[in-house]
């Protein structure tokens, strides 16, 4: 019991640290992504400003519940301060991320300020969950077991093989779709209407996927922190390229993610 409480405490501290650092980390990403585009660029700390300007006093239930779900998912992340997660924990993490969208829809405005209609956002939840479930399968299949404490390490040992590259690309597509959505959310025309907890949930969800991608699907032999930073830079480059070509990339990337992850399992 004592061990469990210590681990829960460490996980919550990790989630708090990620919440505090999320605006800075994504500020860097969005600043880099704006390179080469016309118009004035935002500063590195502009997301703190956006959060400060958001409607904090309006404690609406939907965005707050959404934030709670994402915060719990952040406390379960592998690497960083948290321990290595198992297959069962990973399923729960996926479910919590999916549940965030449901609570937002049931209890309030949710993604109302993102510019993405609610129906479209809820429909995309299917592709999002499919990609996350397939990433579980990728991870488990590499370990050939439901006991997965060392699967991340094994995954790192198999990079530069076709199936691993496909898996990395697949999860990175999911991350890029999430980053594209967050960028639109914070720089779109309806950004003024966002609520504080909803905006924070959006930021944290992107950072959770970024950390997950770095920990599980970015096979570079580095510690967690530098690996996450390298992944963040790659995300910035991807967003810059997508913005440069003016592609409506979110749905394309969301479709590509499960397809690539599916192919990666077949390629094993």
């Amino acid at each position, binding site marked *: 019991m004592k061990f469990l409480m210590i681990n829960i405490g460490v996980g919550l501290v990790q989630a708090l640290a990620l919440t505090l650092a999320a605006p800075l980390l994504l500020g860097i990403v969005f600043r880099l992504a704006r390179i080469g585009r016309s118009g004035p660029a935002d500063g590195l700390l502009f997301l703190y400003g956006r959060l400060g300007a958001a409607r904090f006093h309006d404690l609406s239930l939907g965005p707050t519940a959404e934030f709670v779900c994402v915060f719990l998912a952040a406390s379960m992340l592998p690497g960083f301060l948290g321990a290595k997660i198992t297959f069962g924990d990973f399923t729960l993490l996926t479910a919590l991320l999916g549940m965030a969208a449901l609570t937002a829809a049931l209890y309030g405005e949710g993604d109302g300020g993102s510019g993405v209609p609610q129906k479209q956002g809820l429909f995309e939840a299917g592709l999002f969950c499919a990609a996350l479930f397939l990433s579980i399968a990728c991870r488990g299949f590499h370990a050939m077991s439901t*006991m997965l404490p060392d699967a991340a390490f094994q995954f790192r040992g198999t990079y530069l093989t076709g199936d691993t590259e496909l898996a990395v690309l697949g999860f990175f597509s999911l991350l890029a779709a999430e980053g594209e959505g967050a960028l639109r959310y914070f720089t779109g025309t309806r950004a003024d209407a966002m609520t504080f907890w909803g905006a924070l949930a959006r930021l944290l969800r992107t950072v959770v996927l970024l950390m997950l991608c770095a920990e599980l699907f970015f096979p570079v032999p580095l510690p967690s922190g530098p690996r996450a930073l390298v992944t963040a830079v790659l995300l910035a480059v991807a967003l810059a390229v997508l913005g440069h070509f003016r592609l409506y990339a979110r749905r394309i990337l969301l479709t590509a993610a499960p397809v690539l992850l599916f192919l990666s399992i077949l390629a094993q």
Partner: protein
Amino acid sequence: MKRFYAAPIVLLVGACLLFLTGWAFTFRGSLALTACGLLETLLAARFLWQAGCRGDDKGFSGSAALQEAGYAVTAAGLGCLLLQYPNAALPFVCFSAAALFLAQLVFALSGVVIATSRTGYRLALFCVAGVPMTLGFAGLWQLCQGTLSLPMAEAAAWVKPLLAVVFALLGLTWGLRLGACGMYYRSVSAGAARGESRFRLAEALAPVLNFVLGLFPILLVAQAEQVLLSARLPFPVGDYMGLIWGGTGRYAIYSPLILALLFFVLLAVLDAVSGRRGAAS
């Protein structure tokens, strides 16, 4: 019954026939049963989404029930498939998943409750969606574990595509189910806001009852496990509680029960706070 429900119902009947004739316990039969379940789940998820967008009460309940049945058939099919191999502990995971989905079908998806309730059905929708701590999530968790156990039993090449297809469809259908619940709530609440809504005690209590019945009965399962372990059965029972709430690894750092309890307590507090604010304003 609408015509488009014919396909999933035919698949369900086909799955029952496979069981009744005993063909489900052969290798090809179990594969056919799994395929039936997956296809039915996919079709039902599509209808569920459509019914959710329209706010069609009966269509929503029927499609959700058919989807649960599809999950149960998939789990039973995988269990029968794993019976072909010597490791006796693996089918237990799949069959327990099928039992959980059937329990979800009976308790949490009493379609009448959702169809007649106009107030407070958000709570019931949580159960229908299969969020953590409910029967649906426990079943999904077990089904994923059973699917992932398949390569441990069989190393043939066909396992990989099957595993990929099962996981892709599980994720897609579960995500669509979440989305459909959200869409259904929005459609129905928009309709209720326009029409006259009268408070009736039964309508308020029904979702609460639905929610309570849809929760995973952890205390009951713990007692049942104790009984089974002390009965010294000829087949392995395993650490079922550990399997469900601790994940499958030795390094399970969180109990999902604690997390889910925390979530629901926070939700209740926030609900109370926001209700008071709304009343004050």
